[in-house]
């Protein structure tokens, strides 16, 4: 199979998929070397980017997905008759804490935000942006939360490593370093993992 043919094949598959497709999975499906598939996908993504048209081949949640270009958002909204949605600050703050600090309990989120966050955690669960990872092996066995694949998809992140680094305040010289995170429990306490499927 020549590279043009491979690219066409990959393009067709990514196009029809309703979820981002991983290079691994595509390599298996086309029975090709993973590195070759990966570079073909990269080339495709670059072509679309250079072309600067209505769609882009985005790298999200560990896979590839066609998406509309951000600058045409108005046209797409007009077509779908949709209003732009907004995340509340409470939702974004809680999501940021969960994303950067996972696995975390509701107590951790509330300690860091300084306010009750039960309602907002429920909403994030309902929207499948976070999920229950299991229970923490401490008194009361509180649930622990982490982000989902949908979170990566919605926020256009390749993986959790893609999250921008938190702005640290290293210049400060407190008696105790900021690195001593003021959580009620530390993150590496033993955790009751959910049995994986």
């Amino acid at each position, binding site marked *: 199979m020549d590279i043009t043919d491979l690219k066409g094949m990959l393009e067709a598959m990514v*196009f*029809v998929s*309703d979820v981002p497709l991983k290079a691994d999975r595509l390599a298996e499906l086309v029975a090709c070397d993973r590195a070759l598939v990966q570079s073909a996908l990269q080339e495709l993504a670059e072509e679309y980017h250079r072309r600067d048209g209505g769609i*882009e081949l*985005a790298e*999200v949640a560990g896979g590839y*997905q*066609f*998406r*509309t*270009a*951000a600058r045409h*958002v108005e046209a*797409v909204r007009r077509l*779908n008759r949709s209003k*732009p*949605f907004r*995340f509340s*600050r*409470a939702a*974004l*703050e809680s*999501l*940021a*804490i969960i*994303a*950067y600090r996972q696995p975390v309990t509701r107590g951790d989120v509330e300690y*860091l*935000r*300084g*306010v*009750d966050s039960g309602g907002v955690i429920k909403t994030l*669960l309902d929207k*499948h942006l976070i*999920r*229950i990872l*299991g229970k923490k092996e401490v008194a009361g066995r509180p649930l622990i939360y982490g982000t989902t694949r949908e979170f990566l*998809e*919605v*926020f*256009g*992140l390749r993986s959790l490593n893609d*999250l*921008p680094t*938190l*702005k*640290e*305040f290293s210049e*400060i010289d*407190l*008696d*105790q370093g*900021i690195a*001593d*995170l*003021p959580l009620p429990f530390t993150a590496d306490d033993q955790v009751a993992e*959910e*049995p*994986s*499927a």
Partner: protein
Amino acid sequence: MNLDIKLENFEGPLDLLLHLIKKNEMEIWDIQVTRITEQYLAILDAMHHMNLDVAGEFLVMASTLLYIKSKLLLPPSEGELVEEEEEDPRAELVRRLLEYQKYKDAALDLDERELLGRDVFARKFTAPDLAVEEEDTGFYEVGIYDLVEALQDILARAPRDVVHEVGLEQVSIAERINHILGLLSRCDSLAFSDLFQEKPRRNDVIATFLAMLELVKMRTVKLMQNDRCGSIWLFPITAAETLNGSLPEEDSLGYH
């Protein structure tokens, strides 16, 4: 200083404190506790005079501030002098503020990204020629907690008192069936949410829901969903004209 501040604009006491610190051009790690405490309490007081509810978290922070202030004012006791380098009473609060500031900034960063469904869009449907029977190829990873979540959803909307309520309010299900069929005769599909008025009464929702179930049972409509959390759509199974002619009798439905 202008204290025209609305508490509801702040996510919580930490947010309000950060605002005051910024407004006073202080550094977080060098808070002038007396000044900040005064301003903080003045805002709470103003809220109180306007008969506004001040959430408990704001009051807890007020007492924390007062405690820190008192610690700073009191001369250290002899016992404490023995321990060298006692921690600054502000340290814990400073750490929390810095930590909160960090996630507050991270939240803004998240919001500035190109969000799927807000700024960019993907195709979220299966091409019609691909909607073929799926083969037995294993399962997506689904955890037991997904199962519990599903159950919770059902519990949240379970028809626990449906039978009694309908009886009490005398909402005609046949009337609702008629209404749905009327709507369906004018289009080929209908969103479930379109069956209701802007603010439907609870009994209307129940009656409409039961009417919809009856229609499904009678095999006159089918319900479709385009993804697992998408909205429900009604599609007529037979031509809408024939449906209009054969309306069910109220009694035959068995709801009294």
